[in-house]
């Protein structure tokens, strides 16, 4: 009870205080009326206002009667016409506002319908005119509250009886389209991986495209499929047909002339590689391909083929005189997507049988009457891949591989003109494990890949590759120009079997990717 007294006393004082602090600040009020009116008339884009259109024939307007206006303007009476629309504009969600605030009424006359003028229907168009500016509306609220509240209640009820009802909006800017995320992103699912692989990999990847969003915004992954897929260039060919797509993924075959671990160009290795590749998703749920554990495995083999003799005649390969012989070998290339939350893993291993007979590249030893040759039988690389994009539009895409590479180098000696090795002269001279860092870059404006680059540092040598899209024909045909550069050793001396660097250029044709 005592507490009550306190309250009462307080409130009486408070009410007094309020009454005292109401000086009529007419000038300020006018200022605001002017400012608001100006703002409403001039600012076309930025106003967060809602509106509701009444047809001139609307029964409610007739019931409402005419609305009084200030400054001796005649009261606004609504024209009962099909061609006239009255747009009541109001403020809905103002900060600190609890209710709708009616602001002004525009009269929109569709002249193509209502034109009965003398000049005929020459100008078909819409004329919009502010018939009840903010001053008048404010006046209506202050002095004719009855009519104001009828209009107000009508609008308020629209949303009450139908929760899904939406008012029109006058907002000219589209903040939602401009959602900018400032930081680059990395997807935690396979999006980046699939994007990268389908743009750069020799073999085909199912492409996941987001179908148009349903009402609840569900996206479904659809694959665009072609009867067969072909990627053909001067250094490698891959092919897969629809019948090779089995339920879990797909298979394809390839031919190539490349050795990815060693710092040599295609054609320089003296081998012809062939391979069989399968892609599967090791997941229980087939629908969520993006979250599944995918395994891309290639079983590789290669046989020796004297491509080195061809190389001098090839205008597109500028070989830096690499003196390494490769051997017939088998191997494996595996890419997996994030097993147990680890990064993407890549493993490549090629194991060849030591065969020293009749190397393609021999070096004459001037001191003795012998030849010698260098061989590499085993190559391997294990790395982790990290993907990221500079923005959520996925325009500039990056991938960084960090790992370890391995190769061995054997040296063998021959008698001049003899094909077989001198017994016991084969020795292991290099057995190298070295860190390897590869940076990939893809540029894909509007989701279509335009350019790809690769920069790899391994064993103090740089290998760079790149491609650019030249032409794209409808129906899945695609032509790219591609180039590769290998540098000589940097910050260390060149070994005898290494090249001083070289470059090659080619055109690739891709279909169905």
């Amino acid at each position: 009870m005592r507490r009550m007294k306190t309250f009462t006393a307080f409130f009486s004082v408070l009410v007094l205080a309020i009454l005292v602090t109401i000086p009529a600040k007419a000038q300020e009020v006018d200022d605001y009326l002017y400012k608001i009116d100006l703002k409403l008339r001039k600012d076309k884009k930025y106003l967060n206002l809602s509106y509701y259109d009444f047809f001139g024939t609307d029964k409610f307007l007739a019931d409402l009667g005419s609305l009084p206006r200030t400054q001796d303007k005649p009261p606004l009476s609504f024209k009962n016409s099909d061609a006239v629309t009255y747009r009541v504009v109001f403020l809905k969600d103002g900060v600190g506002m609890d209710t709708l605030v009616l602001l002004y009424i525009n009269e929109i006359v569709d002249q193509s319908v209502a034109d009965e003028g003398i000049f005929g229907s020459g100008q078909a168009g819409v004329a919009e005119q502010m018939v009840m500016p903010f001053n008048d509306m404010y006046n209506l609220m202050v002095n004719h509250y009855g009519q104001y509240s009828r209009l107000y209640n009508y609008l308020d009820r629209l949303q009450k009886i139908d929760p899904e009802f939406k008012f029109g909006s006058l907002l000219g800017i589209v903040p939602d389209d401009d959602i900018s995320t400032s930081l680059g992103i990395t997807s935690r699912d396979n999006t980046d991986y699939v994007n990268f692989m389908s743009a750069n990999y020799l073999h085909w990847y199912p492409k996941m495209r987001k179908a148009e969003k349903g009402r609840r915004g569900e996206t479904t992954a659809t694959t665009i499929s072609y009867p067969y897929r072909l990627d053909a260039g001067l250094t490698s060919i891959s092919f897969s047909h629809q019948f090779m797509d089995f339920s879990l993924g797909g298979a394809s075959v390839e031919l190539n002339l490349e050795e990815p671990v060693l710092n040599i160009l295609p054609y320089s290795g003296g081998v012809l590689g062939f391979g069989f590749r399968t892609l599967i998703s090791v997941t229980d749920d087939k629908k969520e391909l993006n979250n599944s554990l995918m395994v891309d495995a290639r079983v590789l083999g290669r046989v020796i083929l004297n491509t080195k003799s061809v190389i001098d005649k090839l205008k597109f390969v500028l070989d830096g005189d690499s003196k390494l012989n490769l051997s017939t070998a088998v191997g494996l290339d595996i890419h997996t997507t994030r097993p147990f939350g680890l990064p993407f893993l890549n493993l490549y291993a090629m194991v060849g049988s030591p065969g020293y007979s009749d190397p393609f590249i021999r070096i004459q030893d001037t001191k003795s009457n012998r030849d010698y040759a260098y061989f590499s039988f085993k190559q391997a690389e294990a790395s982790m891949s990290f993907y990221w994009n500079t923005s959520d539009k996925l325009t500039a895409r990056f991938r960084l591989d960090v790992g370890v590479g391995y190769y061995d180098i054997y040296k063998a000696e021959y008698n001049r003109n003899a094909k077989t090795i001198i017994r016991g002269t084969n020795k292991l001279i290099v057995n190298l494990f070295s860190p390897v860092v590869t940076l990939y870059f893809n540029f894909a404006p509007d989701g279509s890949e335009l350019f790809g680059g690769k920069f790899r540092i391994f064993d103090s040598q740089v290998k760079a590759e790149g491609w650019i899209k030249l032409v794209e024909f409808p129906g899945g045909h695609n032509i790219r120009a591609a180039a590769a550069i290998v540098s000589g050793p940097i910050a260390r001396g060149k070994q005898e079997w290494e090249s001083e660097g070289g470059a090659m250029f080619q055109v690739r044709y891709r279909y169905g990717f």
Partner: protein
Amino acid sequence: MKIKFLFFTLVSSLLLLNSSSAQNEGGATGNTELDRLKMIYESVEYNTIAFDDLKKKWLIDDPEFIREIFNRFVVRNSLRLNGRVVKIDVVKEKSKAIQDGTVTIEVRKRYYDDEIEYFAFIPDDEVGKENARVLFDPVTDGFLLKEILGEKVYDKIRERTYFQKDITKQQFTTKFGYAFDVKLNALESEVMFWNTTSDARNKYLLSLFSKWGNDRMFFPGWFANEMFIGGRMTYFKDLRNNPEDYTYRISAGLGVQSGRPYKVDTKRDQLWLSGSSFYGQIEAYPLGFIGSDFFDDIKATLEVKVTVGENKSADYGLYRTNQIFYSNRNFFNLTWKKSNLLQFEDLGNLEVSLTLSSSDIWKYELNPVAKTVTDLEKNNKPFFKKFNHILSVDVGIAKNSGLIQHNVAMVFGYGSDGYGFFGARGMAMLSGNFGFDVRVYVSAGLNEKKFPYRYDTYLVFSPILRINY
């Protein structure tokens, strides 16, 4: 008592009421009509308060242009102070400041289009303050401003073809990401590749690391011939903005032989590897339990290398003559580091650390004929006498966020072998991605004869590439 209480509450509430209305001049003044209109005025526009700091903002500095603008305000009688028309004598008085050139104009653009949404005359000395005192009421509507100034001047303001200062915020603090973190630096790399949360907001991170050399015993990168590689686990009790705020971090690895990226100085001896070494490091904030802010960020680091087994002669490679060489087999570093000791605004925070580093040096002779190497100091130097204990102090400034991150420190150390060191470490990174790391150490009072494996000057450097998501 009751009355006192009543009185007290009344007075205090009234005071509070008044003070609140005084604060927001023209705000909740109790004038309902004005209040409502003001509210409507503020609400009709699409609100972008959240972006205020990212909007384009600049100061008009051109004195003549400022006069021109001011004059138009005067002509149009558009100057207001607390909502009311300003009396002419006040205008005169304030225009003096404009003539003195001590007034600038702060202009801010809207976020989604090109119109101006804030325009105010501000005295020079108020610029940059959070609640800057303005000369007159700011204009918060571009269209009103256009009415006052006329279209031409308004467009000129927007085009910014006059003397002006851009004060748009460029860089905002960002948070550390835990998806992956690749730090490539020849001297110390780390690749964080796995993370998990097992409870609440905690985080376990697994990474691989490499560390070249040992700065604490003043054998940085390049000069050490040994690189440690291994695995590392970082544990966060709960995630913080600062990635250095981990609860503890454990590293374990092996030492491997490394080359040197420059021509070997044959006059000085190198340290050789004489066995397989194991490397371990534990970092934690052990004084956190005291519960004081000061002790919270004292980090203790214990770093140990232990070499086991002895290489056979054949393991050292092919030598035809006897070689006498030195080898470091074990070391032990204990560092206490206090960070955030002082704050130097944008420069970063001062940090100080104290390190005790004990490392042993063995002198061996390699005889290619013999099976094993011989310890030349076996008799005159027992195990514990082979150690050199270096006490060193680092004083540095570190900044871990923002456009430019850096960590620069001066180092001073003195060892029980009777020589000292001084030097500097410096690391700077641009936008957290690219950077450079340099370390220079200079010996003082070094007896080069006695310690032939020591160098006069050590200089190592490496570029840094860091990708963190």
